């Protein structure tokens, strides 16, 4: 997929004026945060589970090599195969090779962000294998030639009219504006594709070292039909998904659905362990796990290590004011929102991804809802620092930071200047307490008012408080 992250500003500008997109994004803001809050209120232990999940993920990463090898040996013991892939290209080639060995013509796919990350669909198609997306949202997007704009609700940027037109054009049926009828059409269209597919590709939410199992979590049941009907099941997933035991997986499952959709539990949580057993009448004859690294192992040495705790629930983007305003496609690559602003620069390079960690007000909402307590603002700040150190920050911004730094290092001067600018801004605001035109800062005031500062600076208030405190 084409990377447009360097054009974030332009993407955002267009997104803000896109009436359809703005209407669709309204569904994110009103839906997910409310549902998550309700689910959380019903489980008093929720925050304690988050602490345990954070600690467990840290333990796993500290022993990641050992857990991965333990997982591999269990998969082999169960008659499955494990493929270790350092890069996206390694992964694509490995998957294509398995498909070609099976003379596969069509491949059904369950929802998988890792396959988006490695750009699998285009590669398979270019090599004569037809991928068929089966998650309803992904299916809609495949018909439209689009990519997901959200990691758990891929078609959230679309409205009913869009889906209606797409299905009308592709299914050759009377146009319907009833979501139930549209879903029924997709169900019928895909039924035979499930049965006819030679290979089924799914992702994995977790890999269990204890048993050598992969688990997928879906509401539609498409992932299950993808992995039980074809003769070959390929699990495409990434190295940080491994967990020690079934009990440990359970800790994450209790958090995942509640953080993501606000459900008590996702409809289908399915564990797959190796190929079909003797006497089984269905299930795949071959079971492959493709373990993708793609820059993750490099994150361990840096502050970004904490990002490896991510369980891809999407709570951060569901609560993000920036995501809610500009939508997922503005971010210009696979992973949008706060988690994407941390991951994307790692995967496509800070040179291309630098605007993303800057597209945040650091309001902290993302960190406050993260089920594994990833300090997302801190990690975005890591990238801003990295950008500055690599001299990627625009000249004007560097100059501004330099000037600010000069004064910040001279507190007396800084205080003098800030009480002066305070007075100036208050005079400019007049009685309104809001400033709607500011010299040299039209970039700010064109779009919104600047709030006028309070009468006294923080330092003035502080010293007064100290004095009063001492006298009383």
């Amino acid at each position, binding site marked *: 997929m084409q990377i447009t992250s360097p054009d974030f500003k332009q993407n955002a500008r267009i997104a803000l004026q896109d009436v359809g997109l703005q209407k669709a994004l309204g569904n994110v803001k009103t839906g997910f945060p409310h549902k998550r809050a309700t689910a959380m209120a019903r*489980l008093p232990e929720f925050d304690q589970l988050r602490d345990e999940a954070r600690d*467990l993920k840290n333990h796993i990463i500290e*022993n*990641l*090599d*050992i857990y*991965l*090898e*333990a997982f591999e040996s269990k998969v082999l013991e169960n008659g499955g195969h494990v*493929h270790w892939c*350092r890069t996206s290209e*390694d992964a694509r080639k490995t998957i294509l090779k398995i498909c070609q060995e099976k003379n596969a013509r069509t491949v059904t796919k369950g929802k998988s962000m890792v396959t988006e990350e490695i750009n699998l669909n285009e590669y398979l198609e270019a090599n004569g294998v037809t991928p068929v997306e089966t*998650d309803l*949202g992904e299916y*809609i997007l495949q018909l439209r030639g689009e990519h997901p704009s959200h990691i758990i609700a891929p*078609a959230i940027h*679309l*409205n009913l009219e869009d*889906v209606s037109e797409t299905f009308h054009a592709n299914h050759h049926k009377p146009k319907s504006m009833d*979501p*139930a009828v*549209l879903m029924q059409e997709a*169900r019928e269209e895909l*039924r035979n594709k*499930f049965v006819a597919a030679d290979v089924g590709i799914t992702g994995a939410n977790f890999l269990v070292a*204890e048993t050598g*199992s992969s688990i997928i979590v879906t*509401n*539609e049941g*498409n992932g*299950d*039909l993808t992995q*039980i*009907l074809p003769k070959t099941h390929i699990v495409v997933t990434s*190295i940080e998904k491994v967990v020690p*035991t*079934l*009990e440990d997986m*359970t*800790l994450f499952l209790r958090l995942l659905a509640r953080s993501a*959709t606000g459900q*008590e*539990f996702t*409809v*289908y*949580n*399915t*564990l*797959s*362990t190796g190929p*079909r*057993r003797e*006497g*089984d*009448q*269905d*299930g795949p004859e071959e079971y492959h796990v493709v373990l993708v*690294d793609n820059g993750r192992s490099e994150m*361990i040495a840096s502050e970004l*290590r904490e990002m490896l705790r991510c369980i891809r629930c999407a709570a951060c983007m569901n609560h993000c004011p920036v995501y809610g305003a500009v939508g997922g496609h503005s971010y210009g690559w696979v992973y949008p929102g706060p988690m994407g602003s941390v991951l994307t620069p790692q995967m496509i390079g800070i040179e291309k991804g630098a605007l993303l960690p800057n597209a945040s007000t650091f309001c902290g909402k993302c960190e406050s809802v993260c089920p594994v307590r990833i300090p997302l603002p801190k990690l975005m700040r890591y990238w801003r620092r990295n950008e500055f150190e690599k001299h990627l920050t625009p000249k004007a911004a560097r100059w501004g930071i330099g000037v600010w730094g000069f004064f910040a290092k001279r507190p007396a001067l800084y205080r003098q200047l800030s009480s002066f600018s305070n007075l100036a801004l208050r005079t400019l605001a007049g009685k309104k307490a809001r400033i709607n035109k500011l010299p040299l800062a039209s970039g700010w005031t064109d779009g919104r008012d600047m709030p006028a500062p309070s009468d006294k600076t923080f330092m003035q208030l502080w010293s007064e408080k100290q004095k009063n405190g001492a006298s009383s």
Partner: protein
Amino acid sequence: MSKAEILGQIRRGLGRTEPSAADRDAVASRIAAHKANLIPARAQIPEKECQQLFIDMAREAAADVIELNSLKALPSAIAEWLDQYSITDLVAAVDAPLPELCKKLPETIHIRTGVAQAGDLASLTTAFLGIAETGTLMLYSRPDSPTTLNFLPDNHLVVLNRSDIVGVYEEAWAKVRELNQGKMPRTVNMITGPSRSADIEQKLQMGAHGPRRLAIFLID
């Protein structure tokens, strides 16, 4: 090649070389102990309350729960349930007590056994367990009970004994470990209500790709 590179990079990141025997042992014993993490209090309750919680949570997830006071009442309950949707074909698993039960169904219902096919209207299976905390069924694959029965047909009818309801997932894992000398079944399904999707405008619709309806026949 790739494996060595990935493991090497992980180890460099962790600031060590190959893990020591002690590190490996620590991980192995952690796995072997498979200790529970924090278990929410919700389903750590007396048996009767637990069974009611299962029923309430399953209904909340849009499953149809039919309570029966004995196995004898099951054939007519199944026949009645199928009749309300005018379904006359059933594909059934063959583990006990299903074969005996199927013999007692009215002759108007055509029964087939084996795997499910696209287009099947209804399937009948047993459930291994019910899990109260979220109203979840647990099923697993074996020659007697193919997994396609749980996903392909439009309606999934499940027989569950009231005594097979446990409180929390951890209790279920303990029972899974008792199967096949501790070897994990090929497929373990945790099913909470019928299939659904909200991918169109976040409006929830039932019956995406899996069964449109899930009927749980709960036997005393």
